[in-house]
């Protein structure tokens, strides 16, 4: 069934959808226009966050205007987006560091310890070689 949307609701929802669409479009344009992978990474991590955010606000306003209740799903979606966006960005950045850059093309890390991504034998977690625990004992040193 269709709900009737009051005029104020119609205007607000439209405004948010248009703004969100514009930002998503700009994010995609940036993906095409910017010169290399690491700068391209900037466009989708930011512009798209606000694009999706706008759609979610429009959705909340729509539910409130038609059914008169506050829908909270959207807040959860926003939260998960904000949690996951930096992680995928970091993964793409790491790939770029390994394929297109060397430690020489990057600024020096302080104390000249190097960056964790290049220090395969260094203290970074997960890459250090840990001897297999003795059978029957539990290893606690990581």
């Amino acid at each position, binding site marked *: 069934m269709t709900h009737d949307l009051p005029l104020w609701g119609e205007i607000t929802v439209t405004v948010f959808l248009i703004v969100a669409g514009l930002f998503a479009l*700009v994010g995609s344009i940036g993906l095409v226009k910017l010169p290399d992978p690491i700068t391209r990474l900037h466009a989708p991590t930011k*512009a798209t*966050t606000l694009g999706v955010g706008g759609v979610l606000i429009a959705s909340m306003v729509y539910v409130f205007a038609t059914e008169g209740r506050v829908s909270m799903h959207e807040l959860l979606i926003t939260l998960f987006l904000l949690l996951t966006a930096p992680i995928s960005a970091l993964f793409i*950045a790491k790939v770029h560091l390994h394929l297109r850059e060397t430690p020489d093309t990057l600024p020096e*890390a302080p104390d000249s310890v190097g960056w*964790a991504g290049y220090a395969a034998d260094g203290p970074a977690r997960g890459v250090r070689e840990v001897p297999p625990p003795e059978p029957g004992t539990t290893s606690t040193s990581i």
Partner: protein
Amino acid sequence: MLSRFLPHPLLSLTLVVAWMLLVNQITVNSLVFAVILGLVIPVITRPYWPDMPRLRHPFRAIEYVFVVLYDIVKANIEVALIVLFKPNRDLRPAWITVPLDVRSPEAITMLAGTITLTPGTVSCDLAANGHAVLIHALHAPDPDVVRDTIKQRYERRLKEIFA
């Protein structure tokens, strides 16, 4: 006694709220189930967080969330303007090293995530001893300004939040 049945009050609260948001309506049924989840999951997952982070100022954390949300909106507009109106040859991308004063892994994670979400910067790597982050800026004619903004606006607040 409390620590045995409620080892991580903040996690329990988060689980209850997240479940209520998922169900999307407030009824006694869903509230009871949310409380059960909030009690059982922290007890079962206890071995996975041997040293749990402590918040010194939970209310500062709320202030931090709003500062970051505001900056995300600002960052979006700035990046959109750069993408649309700045020719590629005028772009000044830069690698910037930000020395860290915060030491707890949770605070560094929060800072790195914030840097990625806010004005024209993506955090790319951590120094091998964890004392600095490497970030990439889309357009930074003056890298020192970017570094100082990050340290003053975000790191100072995180240092107050995490004990």
